[in-house]
């Protein structure tokens, strides 16, 4: 299986993602933001970090990079595009997934483990996953998902909510919401479910010596679904 990770100026989880994809069997290529063409890929990943320093709105300047036109075309033709953290913010800025990501509610960067509940398995990312609740890691300053009430209705009607912040047993309540995100939303699909943006970093949880191993489940399942 072939994957591509895009490196934007200021990306800093690109290597981590590369390591994770390789570990679970992807043949991964690093792609520079200023290139025109995507290599042939089964999966394109927009990694976390601070593209362009997040100096305007997170992800806004990266969304105008040269390579993004190819990524958008790839997504529109049904290709799998996964945006993690800053990658999610970039996806939102391109309009590939709806909504925006605002500053965290308490205006503080948050780095910690959280539980997420997988809401929708009818898609290439979570199909066949045998757990509903995963322990994932978040590290972000702007993960406070927001959209208008019309958008929210559409998203819900189309089953586009991928994951929610929850507690260990899957309860989705305000007290388990780390950043003020609307309805505890942690990740969103596009309508067709081939594009996924999410705040948590599965690539940081691929080894039992790290903060946990639920990221491994995610990647193993993903590559099996693509095969």
């Amino acid at each position, binding site marked *: 299986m072939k994957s591509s990770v895009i490196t934007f100026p*200021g990306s800093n989880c690109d290597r981590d993602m590369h390591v994770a994809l390789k570990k679970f069997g992807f043949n991964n290529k690093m792609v520079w933001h200023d290139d025109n063409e995507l290599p042939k890929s089964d999966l394109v990943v927009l990694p976390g970090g601070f593209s362009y320093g997040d100096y305007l709105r997170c992800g806004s300047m990266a969304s105008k990079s040269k390579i993004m036109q190819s990524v958008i075309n790839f997504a529109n033709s049904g290709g799998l595009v996964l945006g993690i953290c800053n990658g999610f913010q970039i996806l939102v800025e391109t309009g590939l997934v709806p909504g925006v990501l605002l500053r965290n509610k308490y205006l503080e*960067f948050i780095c910690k483990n959280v539980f997420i509940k997988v809401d929708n398995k009818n898609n290439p990312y979570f199909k066949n996953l045998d757990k509903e609740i995963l322990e994932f890691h978040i590290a972000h300053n702007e993960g406070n998902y927001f959209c208008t009430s019309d958008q929210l209705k559409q998203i819900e009607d189309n089953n586009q909510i991928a994951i929610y912040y929850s507690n260990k047993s899957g309860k989705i309540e305000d007290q388990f919401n780390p950043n003020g995100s609307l309805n505890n939303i942690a990740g969103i699909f596009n309508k067709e479910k081939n594009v996924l943006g999410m705040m948590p970093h599965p690539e940081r949880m691929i080894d039992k010596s790290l903060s946990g191993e639920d990221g491994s489940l995610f990647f193993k399942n993903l590559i099996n679904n693509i095969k």
Partner: protein
Amino acid sequence: MEVNEQIAIDHGLKKEEYQKICDLLKRTPNLTELGIFSAMWNEHCSYKSSRLHLKKLPTSGEKVIQGPGENAGVIDIDDGDAIVFKIESHNHPSFIEPYQGAATGVGGIMRDVFTMGARPIANLNSIHFGSPQNKKTKNLLRGVVHGIGGYGNCMGVPTIAGQTSFDSSYNGNILVNAMTLGLVKKDKIFYSKAAGLNKPVIYVGSKTGRDGIHGASMASASFDEKIEEKKPTVQVGDPFTEKLLLEACLELMAGDSIIAIQDMGAAGLTSSSIEMASKGNLGIEIDLNKVPCRESKMTPYEIMLSESQERMLIVLENGKEELAKKIFDKWNLDFAVIGKTTNSKNIELFFDNQKVANIPINTLVENSPMYDRKWKKTKLPKKNKIKKEDLKKLKVKDVLKKILSHPNICSKEWIWQQYDHTVMGDTIQKPGGDSGVVRVHGTKKAVAATVDSSAVYCWAHPLSGGKQIVCESWRNLISVGATPIAITNCLNFGSPENDVNMGEFVECVQGIGEASKHLQFPVVSGNVSFYNQTKEVGIKPTPSIGGVGLIKDYTKMISMDFKELNNLVLLIGKTEGHIDQSLFARTILDEKNGPPPEINLFNEKNNGETMLQLIEKNFVKSAHDVSIGGLITAISKMCIKGNKGIELNKPKSLISEIEYLFSEDQGRYIIEIHPNNLDKVVNILDENSVHYEKLGKIVQNHMTINPKTNITIDELKSYNTNWLTNYMSA
């Protein structure tokens, strides 16, 4: 402008120093030259008050590849790998503008590390604030934490450990010390020594602006009352540009184009160009019109003294300019050939086709002033007579509650949760443990790092205090299963012109030296920050020690959380009941006098090495050193982290219960072992003549100290975890 004595004094130079400059030059310097002298000869760059004493520190050892004198120290961690590390202060700017001051401090220390060819793999910080009641403290703390996070998080380097304290002596002068570790291959280390004639001198990074002109002088002047009106220029950090600079430099370093490289830190282009030339025993020529400038009409004086961040100076091999330029273009960074190395042994500056400065480099470096300042010795204070009856009246639970929720003991999670501590995917011990630990990417090895200071002990008796911090650093590394290798130090003191403050400096350095020599834990890099004072009053002497150690097999790393019910808990080291200067004495008894705990370097070493033997044999399931707050504080933290309780045995000791639980005797560790291994463990301890006690056994969710004192783990947690969050949100 004609230079005269008054202008020199305005530049922070002393009358005699100005005279010396005229004598060395055999003429009056022009303004640009005077600026260069003032920058090179100030405390920050010249170490004029400290050099004499720093020489006494042990700086070499089997594992030391590079000691002090370069951008950072370098140690060998086997298999061709090396760790580059250093700590730096950014105290004064952080008081004036906490966010930018702290941010640029982090940026500066990371540059020191990647200048040597190392990719930064971990950040640490040691931050000290005034009393929580002081009205400025909260905003300073918030600004500093946001600044450290803002820069480090954006760079994608995990912040894995640190230290935070509050003390009213920092009310008008906070401390912000930042430390970085980088990883490099032993044969790919870059140095700042220029070599060869007519080699191109390259400027890369951000453009030069008017920021921080005289920043280095500011760092060397104490705050007076008017500081708030003074509005000195503080630099704004640009972590995005630094991230690009890091990647571009590492890309260029992968080849063989670089002869020497030096970041532009304090005193910017001045100190970087002079240091490179001086080390290579060469001259250097710079055309200032070629320096990329942000503002129009910048003068030679401003260009030379600007402290704009995110800039580097490189001496390249001839003919590599195009290749280098291509890399910096790719990363959208400024690149300019601004000069060349010469055989004049002078620094020669040109501007608008005129020579605007010409100074022999040895006058700036070797001939810079060095002072043997007057200093006062501190006598060991007399022990306090504490009445046993007073201690008997205290309830253990009440005392423990106060100690665990004390600002200097309570959990600092509010801080480190704002630092990305997991990026790079190799953090295996996050903040909150005895040391932060990161794996050496792609290997079985891991590196542990800790930063510590004990201002109260240093204030009471600098010599003991100096020794104590080195020992504490050593213990924190051992507690996670790492073999300590070397330290870096950031020496934060008041004015060297005050004989008490100078004495504190001299004796702390002596203590650090003695301990580091005995433990074979050499000093490989460091930084001195003087003039941390408001009006005439200096801060408590606060040397910060950054320690680094190696874990050969990261699966053998130890953490402090209690692991398993029914396991036994042992205390390594002897409890004598030293209460003076303990957190207990200072906060519960309100007794601020007396000597700090005694340091026995022989026991320290023996206990530590024996710990490493036990860990090597896999006997240790969890471990934690005993530091401020004493035995019961250490045990409480292990309970909280492991979410388990303990039933303590009745101590066999003759001292009172309070003294037993809260005294701060040194050289102690708490370990958890499986009951089946007790005999084997005891054997090893006996063989090494290490004093130990059986403390008790691990149970579910409550701590039983004596028949009357029983505390649930939830209670312990609530004592320990809430203070800082409540304080910051109030």
